[in-house]
């Protein structure tokens, strides 16, 4: 369940706000990368990819 990794991005997606969803997921991914939260990276990448491909 990717929403557990970036719930705000998922909430934007659920409300069909794709630009906000993509930007928020990207920020969450950047934050996880810079803080070394490697356990979240795969989930966040999957979540971001889904929004970028229009899977809202």
């Amino acid at each position, binding site marked *: *369940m990717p929403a557990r990794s970036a*719930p705000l991005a998922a*909430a934007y997606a659920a*409300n069909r706000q794709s630009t906000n969803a993509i930007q928020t997921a990207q920020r969450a991914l950047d934050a996880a990368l810079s803080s070394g939260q490697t*356990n*979240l990276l795969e989930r966040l990448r999957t979540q971001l990819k889904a929004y970028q491909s229009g899977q809202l």
Partner: protein
Amino acid sequence: MLEYTEVLRLQPGLAEAHNNLANALQRLGRGGGGHRALPRGFEGGPDLAETHNNLGVALAAKGEMAEAVVHYGVALRAKPDYAEAYNNLGNAMVSLGKLDQAVTNFLTAIRYRAQFPKAENSLGCALAMQGRQAEAIPHFTIALNLKPDYGEAHFNLGAALLLQHRNGEAIPHLEQAIRLLPDNPMAMSVLAGIYATAEESALRQPAAALELAKRAVGLTGGADAGALGAPGGRVCRQPAID
């Protein structure tokens, strides 16, 4: 604080001064100085168990878990049925990653104090952290039966139910956790995730998801990354020292 230290210098065995110093350190969030005032080999009797327990709590609050464990051990030698010290020792074991030992200590705490919601919650946490959600759930439930307004236990039960894909049952507990812990973003994030993405369409509430997620992000200073369910992510919430 200086007065307590001076009294201990003059009378190292004075129980009340040890206890006062420990309590003062805990209030200040400090534990590193006072415990060194304890004379080596000084373990005291049953009356001093609380002092050593308090010192352990102060050290644990500073992250000095190995030293905290020593003091809990002294407390338990002085008072072998000291449920609170077993619970604290269990929490220290959790911090040290020794989950099996933590479980044993929490079970012992409950054996000595049958109605001990904090230990039930702690036991549930240790089990949940081992991936034993099905075993954790009854302990969170007991904690809530004993203390219905226990916000952390509501959150932990909601999270455990969610990890078992029991979304519908998780929601009321997460809602209660938000009501009881309004400044904590974790329950908001988790509930927002359910409202946004639940497989059961009847559970989805996109507008509520967005409102909750924004509130959670506002409380975390902009971060939108919940570790719940992530491999290695911590599931449980423990109350602040009480």
